[in-house]
């Protein structure tokens, strides 16, 4: 059988890759892609813990589903923002969106 820790290591690795993506990608859409990686890493954790520790209670899976819903919401809003910004400023590059400076 596969030890639980393997899943956890994989999930940690996936999460870290996501962190890297969020911090380092220039394009805003790519940043959202990386966020998806992080969310999926969390989901793997949730389901793995459910399977190995409490298979009789459905909490893990339920949380995974809720994370799924939140992820969908996040993607919708995020992409809408990107498109809206793109329409106004003709760019989706995060570095060029420096209005926060003011």
């Amino acid at each position: 059988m596969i030890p639980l820790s393997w899943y956890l290591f994989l999930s940690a690795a996936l999460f870290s890759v996501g962190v890297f993506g969020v911090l380092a990608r220039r394009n805003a859409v790519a940043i959202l892609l990386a966020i998806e990686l992080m969310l999926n890493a969390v989901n793997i954790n949730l389901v793995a813990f459910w399977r190995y520790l409490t298979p009789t209670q459905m909490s893990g899976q339920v949380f995974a589903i809720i994370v799924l819903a939140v992820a969908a919401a996040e993607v919708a809003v995020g992409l809408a923002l990107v498109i809206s910004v793109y329409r106004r400023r003709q760019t989706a590059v995060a570095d060029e969106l420096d209005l926060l400076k003011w």
Partner: protein
Amino acid sequence: MTLAQIFFLLVALVMLFSALKVVTVRNLIHAALWLVVTLFGVAVLFAMLDAGFLAVVQVMVYIGAIAILFIFAVMLTRRDASEQGAPLNPNWPVSALIALVTFGGLAWLLRAWQGLPESAAALPAGVDALRALGEALVSPQAFALPFEVASVLLVAALVGAVYVAYGRK
């Protein structure tokens, strides 16, 4: 090394490779497609963890809907999506460092964590996991309220998304 373990390692390798591709590849369409591969790997993991329903949902929702949404978004912001320009910003070495430290910290914590089971507990016999999941989602004693809250959130987010993305004259 059992067969299952070998399979797991293969899947993990594919996933990590494609995930790295997602965050490094220049063409965003390719990045989205690599994300599909990664997400498919996650679905495989769900299946291995006896969460068949989630695996199917993962394929349908993530790969079927969210990934396609990304591809649309990429096409709508076409000008910067394609080949010109670097894929990463000048800060990327620092970012890589942070990612490594994150992974290192997590791994170190996991190393130090005693008592993680080596193998999964047997699934209780005679229980339909899918049915239990369904009941948990709609039962007022379990997760009906959070579930509904999540759906309200989703609706609100979608309405907001339509509003934000709507092109005003």
